[in-house]
């Protein structure tokens, strides 16, 4: 491989000649790709939130004209009043945008791309061009999904889970192009996800720097690595299912068509076989980020590093054998249902290990409540509430009562907003200096955190109560049911909280853009952290390091007795440290 190395070396030397397009648009630099993903996903996060605001307006004030609703076309909201079919598009697209294009891409697009090479001590990903292809197929996928809202008859409206036959038959759903574009977009999304995953896995296995052994890897890298394996094996199943759905829509195949011998429940099995590993794709990287933030904010080694790693692996493994708990009311054999119930309840064990370890890390630590730490602590608390409500729906008899109610809606928002999104916000504030070379404003960061935390709980906690009272999910007008009428004031309260929650994000938006240009210049290691990414300048240069660092210790050596500072970077060589022996580079 010497010739390849020499050419790559020559190419590196000319990198300052890269044009603007090579540097910032069709870039193969993992950091630029991560930042591209960041802007793309924050855009989709804002869009997804805007759709949620319309849902909340309709639920609080059904039948009244929505402010700004008169700007929507007649086919969506004549006179500003939302149509039922538009409402169904709203719930479908809110779920789709948030799950696929906001949370999943934020975690595995932004953090995996930006962090993996920086944290394992590599110049770039194993396959920079495949990485670029992964971003651009995600971009195409997002554009198709966004465009589907503006085609005749509107966007897909069968719910983000696309249950057949509603999604497969145009005469049932009433949307032809919208449904087909959803399937097409998900196929491109699958391609992007597979390309990204194989890149991350190869990079973590083969491109770690000298001394970076498996059990010296930061927990964020462990989590992203295991997540990449989940994505690699789960997403092709979704792609296969989406292809079958697309053929059902455009070629008239009969996979899910009971009139020709097909099986509608097959779609549910395929979708949730992907869908449950997907749930862990959406939370494991967030857990990894939170582990970094909590160790840093507590100035203590992470409590039980090895058990944290094994808990990640355990959650990932169990994630494959629990998909049936989404289908307890779909007409499954009760024996099969019981085994899914048991495997689901088992997931509480590794999840609890993680929660207790985070608390053990904070216990008697020298706590620093900087903005990332606040978000991380909120993650632990909110994830615990979401996890506890998860136990309710894991139990078949309880789930039959609360299935498809707002209790489920509350649960998913506690783990995905209270969990993943708090970790994402914390991570953005934490790594912003390494991405852009400037600090985000601390004071406004705290204002944003506390207001988000308050309004978030005010929005989603009451959903547990209305869910227990029987408020259905995806319901267009709750006031038509007598038993839901007493709940209507609570719906209004939730909606007002939701509007305030969305408004609070403007603070984050302004802080982000203001800090991008006017923020305080960041030092190399603003958070006094041990990770390798803090041993390179802020922002990290192309190629990350002139010469790759050598690692002598694990990532969480905070407050070591006798050390001169309360942190020891992974690449700092103490007199007692021995140099790692370099393994020869693999060739044929």
């Amino acid at each position, binding site marked *: *491989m*010497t*010739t*390849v*190395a020499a050419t*790559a*070396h020559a190419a*590196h*030397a000319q*990198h*300052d000649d890269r044009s603007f397009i090579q540097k910032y648009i069709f870039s193969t630099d993992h950091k630029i790709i991560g930042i591209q993903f960041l802007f793309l996903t924050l855009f989709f996060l804002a869009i997804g939130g805007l759709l949620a605001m319309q849902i909340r307006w309709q639920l609080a004030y059904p039948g009244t004209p929505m402010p700004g609703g008169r700007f929507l076309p007649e086919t969506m909201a004549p006179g500003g009043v939302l149509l039922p079919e538009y409402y169904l598009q709203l719930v479908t697209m809110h779920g789709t945008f948030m799950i696929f294009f906001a949370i999943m891409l934020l975690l595995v697009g932004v953090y995996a791309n930006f962090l993996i090479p920086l944290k394992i001590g590599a*110049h*770039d*990903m*194993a*396959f*920079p061009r*495949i990485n670029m292809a992964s971003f651009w197929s995600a971009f195409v996928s997002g554009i198709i999904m966004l465009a589907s809202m503006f085609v005749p008859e509107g966007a897909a409206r069968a719910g983000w889970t696309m249950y057949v036959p509603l999604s497969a038959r145009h005469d049932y759903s009433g949307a032809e192009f919208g449904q087909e574009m959803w399937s097409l977009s998900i196929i491109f999304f699958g391609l992007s996800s*597979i390309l990204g*995953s*194989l*890149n991350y896995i*190869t990079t973590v*296995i*083969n*491109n*770690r*720097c*000298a001394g*970076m052994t498996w059990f010296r890897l930061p927990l964020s890298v462990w989590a992203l690595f295991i997540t990449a394996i989940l994505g*690699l*094996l789960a997403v*092709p*199943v979704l*792609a*296969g*299912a989406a292809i*079958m759905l697309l*053929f059902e829509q455009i*070629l*008239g*195949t*009969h*996979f899910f*068509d009971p009139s*020709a*011998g*097909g*099986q509608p429940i*097959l779609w549910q099995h395929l979708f949730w076989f992907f869908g449950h590993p997907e749930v862990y794709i959406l939370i494991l990287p967030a857990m990894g980020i939170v582990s970094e933030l909590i160790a840093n904010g507590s100035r203590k080694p992470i409590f039980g590093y090895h058990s944290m790693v094994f808990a990640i692996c355990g959650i990932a493994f169990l994630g494959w054998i629990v998909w049936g708990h989404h289908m307890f009311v779909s007409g499954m054999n009760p024996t099969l249902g019981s085994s899914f119930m048991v495997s689901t309840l088992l997931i509480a064990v590794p999840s609890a290990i993680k929660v207790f370890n985070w608390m053990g890390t904070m216990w008697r630590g020298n706590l620093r409540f900087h903005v990332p730490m606040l978000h991380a602590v909120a993650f632990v608390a909110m994830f615990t509430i979401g996890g506890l409500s998860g136990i309710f729906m894991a139990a078949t008899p309880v789930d039959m009562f609360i299935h498809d109610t707002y209790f489920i809606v509350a649960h998913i928002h506690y783990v995905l907003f209270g969990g993943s999104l708090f970790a994402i916000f914390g991570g953005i504030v934490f790594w912003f200096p390494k991405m852009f070379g400037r600090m985000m404003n601390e004071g406004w960061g705290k204002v944003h955190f506390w207001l988000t935390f308050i309004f978030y709980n005010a929005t989603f906690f009451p959903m547990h109560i209305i869910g227990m009272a029987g408020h259905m999910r995806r319901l267009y007008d709750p006031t038509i049911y007598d038993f839901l009428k007493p709940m209507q004031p609570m719906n209004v309260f939730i909606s007002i909280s939701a509007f305030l929650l969305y408004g609070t994000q403007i603070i984050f938006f302004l802080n982000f853009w203001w800090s991008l240009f006017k923020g305080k210049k960041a030092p190399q290691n603003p958070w006094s952290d041990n990770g390798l990414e803090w041993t390179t300048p802020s922002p990290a*240069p*192309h*190629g990350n390091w*002139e*010469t790759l660092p050598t690692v002598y210790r694990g990532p969480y050596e905070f407050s070591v007795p006798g050390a001169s500072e309360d942190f020891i970077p992974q690449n700092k060589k103490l007199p007692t440290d021995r140099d790692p022996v*370099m*393994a020869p*580079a693999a*060739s*044929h």
Partner: protein
Amino acid sequence: MSQAMAGAMQPPFPAERGIEVYNKKLGMWIFLASEVMFFAALIGSYVILRFGAAGVWAKPGIVLSIQITAFNTFLLICSSVSMVKAYAAIQDGFQDKMKFWLLMTILGGATFVGIQVFEYIHLVEHGFTPAGVREGSHLAELVANGTLPAATMGLYGSTFFTMTGFHGFHVTCGVISMLYLYLFKALPGKYSPQDFSGIEVVGLYWHFVDLVWIILFTIVYLV
């Protein structure tokens, strides 16, 4: 970033530490793992639909021609052999032999796709489509006289075209990649006994596609 700094930078390849497999080959193995899951979704759905169907499945050999496809299967297996021959040739440094066997592999794969396209056209003319049996076609008569079961012909068409179609798409991708290797790597003489990663990596993919076909031929055409 200063020019001096960029110049002193080490290249991202080769791997610093890791397992004794170079990145491209490891990446291909990982990609094949996801391909296994993709085909498992399609084949698993076929198995569930076929055995869960209300009626019996059409007997083999009535709609699909076993003879032609058996020849096609033989061709694809031969192309896997010729891929190995190309790989062995470049390991020993025989450039011309490598080019010859690589070209043979490309021809084998392209012929396979050609025969498959011919088969598809023939099937659609006879009334076999992804949506089932077309009204008023030759096959519709066989359904009417009871030679073919009416209840499962729709599923038969859906699963047949989806599975073999996606396999054909994979073969086409393989042929295109090998053509690229042939024209831009093998012909300019860029391979040597020290560096033949392209042949090895695409070879892995090619054997995988071949293996999938052996499974598909068995479960779609023979049983």
